């Protein structure tokens, strides 16, 4: 049974991805990430000395500043900031640069659905660009649950409005490893962040996770290809 999407995509098809890094002059790392018409610009400053109040000075601290496309930031943006901060904290190695603060600034260029996953991907690319020590990358995806019980990936704004529920899921990326394969679940089957809106049954949620996880392989591959291209260009000089 097929479900029709406005833009003719299949349910598990993502919109075209684009990522460019080191695009801003002043920040220590920057990236723009777009998924279809949704585009986010991320800039990373730091690590800077000192941590803010109420933060543990024995660990590296992160602050996230969300800049909406227009207007003031509201409760929704504050929530995004918090989710992003928690996600970044869990993927970065916090013990390498203790008592430092790293600022991540997210500028929304255009919002056409799946905004938060797009921002997480952009922040992750910018952190790598800045050389912040990380345990692994994070790949984020938005899964939507339609009325009829179908799961749709990477919805645009129109689809997002029509859906009964949606989940923002963040997974670790697929890594290369020289270790012999171990029994049990691979690392990329973990889940870093999960945010759900609306009502969905447990079975539907697991369906979302499964479909989302399947899509992260292509996102991970895109990340890796992007780094290989830019590194390849700069290592020629060396």
């Amino acid at each position, binding site marked *: 049974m097929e479900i029709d999407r406005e833009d003719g995509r299949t349910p598990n098809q993502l919109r075209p991805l684009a990522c460019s890094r080191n695009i801003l002059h002043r920040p220590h790392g920057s990236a723009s990430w777009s998924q279809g018409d949704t585009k986010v610009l991320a800039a990373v400053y730091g690590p800077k000395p000192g941590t803010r109040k109420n933060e543990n000075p024995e660990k590296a601290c992160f602050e996230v500043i969300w800049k909406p496309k227009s207007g003031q930031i509201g409760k929704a943006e504050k929530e995004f900031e918090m989710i992003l901060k928690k996600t970044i904290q869990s993927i970065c190695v916090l013990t390498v*640069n203790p008592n430092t603060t790293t600022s991540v600034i997210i500028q929304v260029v255009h919002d056409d659905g799946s905004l938060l996953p797009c921002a997480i991907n952009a922040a992750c690319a910018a952190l790598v660009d800045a050389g912040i020590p990380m345990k692994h*990358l994070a790949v984020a995806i938005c899964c939507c649950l339609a009325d009829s019980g179908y799961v749709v990936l990477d919805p645009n704004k129109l689809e997002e409005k029509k859906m009964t529920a949606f989940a923002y899921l963040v997974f670790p990326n*697929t890594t290369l490893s020289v270790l012999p394969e171990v029994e049990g679940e691979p690392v990329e089957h973990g889940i870093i962040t999960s945010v759900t809106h609306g009502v969905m049954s447990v079975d539907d949620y697991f369906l979302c996770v499964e479909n989302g996880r399947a899509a992260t392989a292509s996102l991970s591959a895109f990340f890796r290809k992007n780094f290989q291209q830019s590194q390849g260009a700069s290592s020629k000089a*060396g």
Partner: protein
Amino acid sequence: MSSKVSVSPTSLIDQIVVPGDVVLDLSNMTNQTIKLGSGLRQDSDAISAMRAGKFSYSKPNKYWVESSHKRYIPRTEDHVLGIVVDYKADNFWVDIKGPQIALLPGLAFEGATRRSIPKFEVGTLLYLRVVKTNIGMNPELSGTDASGKASVFGPLKDGFMFETSTGLSRMLLSSPTCPVLEALGKKLSFEIATGLNGRVWVNAAAPRSVIIVANAIMNSETLSAAQQRIMVEKLLAKISD
């Protein structure tokens, strides 16, 4: 799942790695001492990458991730260019583009005694050596080499300082001499001091030589060796007529 396909390559040396990639398996490398450079971390028997870049290996036992950033993380025995930002008592506080401001004791110069501590104004550019980088402490610098001689270290007067990425400064310091400097050196005479923290200082008799050298270096970041030579030749041809 497609993840199965990419798993278990025999070796990742000279490949681009991204954070999280497990690059070495210590369980089949017993009876070896290995040295880990920047961008790697150990998690029991697995060595994994923390930064994106080229996983490099140098005989006999050194491994590191080669990458280029705008920010510098201090390492002991690195030579850096620092700018004095403050002085308190007998110590100078020096900016070396790191996460923390670095401490330069006034006595860390050749021939300095309690009575004759060198005086550097705020804004002075110094060529220094990193001596201590303990976690939770400000890095410590020195204006002498390991044997206490001034050798190449000390203040850099006149000239022009510009900032580059750490990758470019490493390229300038590599041996054999990097093509851009070699090509420039054939036609122009100039002094250059490169810090591993991504600062480069250039001085020459004529201001225009300084500008040419600085521009050539800044343009060379993404060029290959042959491209660098062509770029320098073009630049030099322009000024000779």
